[in-house]
């Protein structure tokens, strides 16, 4: 562990263990403080999900009485939960893959293929981030989806979802491809590789880190999207998780706090498991570094 530190401090062997490792200790202390800040609110939710109703309305962290029935309650009361979860996973997955694919193509083209009008395209993408599309976008999108016959079609959500972060994804890929030396691309082209081949075998591996970011940006938005999903889908079983859960938000009646907390845990867990599995793929690129030589 921490070879790097050892390398720098090896020239002072007379130092105590503590002095030798003090940077490392401070660093880990600070990191863990941040981790604690991230995890504390969530652990509070976890505890809340197993509190009895009266205890949930007291400030104490540790309940007087545990109540583990909230989870079964959620599944019994939202009968479509499994299906909604599947919908969310499919829609999110497709959105993330397609957006990333489109963003890679566009970002690569903007930087390394230098099309006519690239500054214009870049400017329009950037500007679009600041337009208050929310005012009427929902109505426009509704009309568009209606025209395409995609109202109440779960997979139809993928189309508007792709656009939610498309501009920012293209911009991210653009700035990542800017970090890839132009000469590398040029020499590959000179060696006779096709445009696709160059992108796939040369450009993409070098832009892995950007892919991770684009992946995450799109995952976060699509996984939590509420407004479009609620507007464009009519049937409860065709809806995605956030819409079904929104009903629980207000804490009305049956949706007492601990039960909402149970919903919470149910929503976060699959994502967490998915990321644990995907992390190898994700972070390998990060840890190794792109241009490590």
């Amino acid at each position, binding site marked *: 562990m*921490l070879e*790097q530190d050892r390398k720098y401090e090896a020239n002072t062997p007379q130092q105590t263990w503590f002095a030798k490792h003090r940077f490392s200790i401070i660093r880990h202390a600070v990191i863990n403080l*941040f*981790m604690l800040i*991230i995890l504390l*609110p969530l652990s509070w*939710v976890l505890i*809340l999900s197993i509190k009895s109703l009266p205890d949930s*309305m007291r400030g*104490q962290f540790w309940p007087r009485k545990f109540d583990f029935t909230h989870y079964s309650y959620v599944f019994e009361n939202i009968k479509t939960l499994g299906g909604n979860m599947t919908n969310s996973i499919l829609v999110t997955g497709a959105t993330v893959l397609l957006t990333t694919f*489109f963003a890679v*193509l566009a970002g*690569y083209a*903007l930087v390394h293929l230098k*099309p*006519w009008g690239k500054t214009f395209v870049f400017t329009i*993408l950037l500007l679009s981030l*600041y*337009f*208050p*599309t*929310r*005012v009427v*976008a929902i*109505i*426009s*999108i509704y009309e568009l989806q209606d025209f395409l016959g995609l109202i109440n079609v779960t997979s139809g959500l993928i189309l508007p979802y792709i*656009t939610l972060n*498309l501009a920012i994804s293209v911009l991210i890929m653009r*700035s*990542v491809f*800017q*970090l890839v*030396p132009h000469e590398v*691309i*040029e020499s590959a*082209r000179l060696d006779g590789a096709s*445009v696709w081949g160059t992108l796939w075998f040369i450009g993409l591996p070098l832009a892995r*880190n*950007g892919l991770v970011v684009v992946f*995450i940006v799109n*995952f*976060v938005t699509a996984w*939590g999207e509420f407004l479009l999903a609620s507007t464009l889908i009519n049937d409860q079983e065709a809806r995605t*998780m956030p819409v079904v*859960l929104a009903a629980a*938000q207000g804490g009305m009646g049956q949706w007492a706090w601990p039960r909402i907390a149970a919903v919470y845990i149910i929503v*976060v867990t699959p*994502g*967490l498991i998915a*990321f644990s599995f995907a*992390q190898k793929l994700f*972070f390998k*690129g*990060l*840890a*190794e570094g792109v*241009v*490590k*030589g």
Partner: protein
Amino acid sequence: MDRGAEIIIPRSVGTAREPKIRQSISAWIFLIPALTFFVCYQVYPIFRIVWISFTDFEFLSTEPANWIGFGNYIEAYNDPLMWKSMGRAALFTVMFLPGTIIFPLILAILVDRVRHPLLATVYRLILLVPALIPSTLVFVLWKWMYNYQIGPINYMLVEVFNIFTYYNAPQWLGGTNLTLPSIAIMEIWWGLGYHAIFFLAGLASIPRDMLEAARLDGANEWRVFWHITLPRLAPIMMILVVLRFGTSMAVIDEYLIFGGFNRGAPTYTWTVYMYDQAFNIGLWRQGFAAAVGMIGAAVMVFFVAGLVYIFRPRG
């Protein structure tokens, strides 16, 4: 080995060696999928707003809309609430933006240097946990956290540390002066890990040899950070600043949830004003709301141009 140095060389060498037109066509083929979606779901709605903003369109009215030129713009320009609410959004941005860049940056630099594979993975996983929570549930969580009477924060302040009583404890959400900072903290928490991942991606693209070479040359950590790490992170940082500037000026769901439509509350920003006019009040004057939105967009674009200029690629 010295590819790091190559990267800093300006890309002036890249001249087209095939007919420009052909390259341009293949480039546009690459752009078409993204642009098709972009035009349908982004540009079309924007044009619609622009058009609506010049009419007296009311969504609930069954009368046809009339072209009224700059009428809505003049009304919005002369509306004190417009500028007051714009100021509130700017205030929030000032509270939120620095924190949401600096904390993840520090965190990323620290985590980047963790070499233990298991720890490095666990840290990165934890960073992503808040990002897995749908936004509506993030708001629910912090509504609980900040609850005046039974939220854990006030519980700690009152029952554990006895700093306050239940008669004078801080009132976080719901439209007090503490509400904007409270929302800023929530947003910073939400983006902490997520933005750190952005920076980790940027850090990973810095060749280790470059850093080590600098250190061997006797540069201290601060100089290494300032002269090597930071410039290399500039593109990522620009993306984040530009993106977050836009989102923080245009926050709306949080305000609707934590402040409602109370015009006296600091959460009643121009976006809420726009929403209020477009979907809540009277016959839903969407023409006027669109003009409010366009003015907001113009102000934001003005500042973004400045930000882009500050973070422009140098060298």
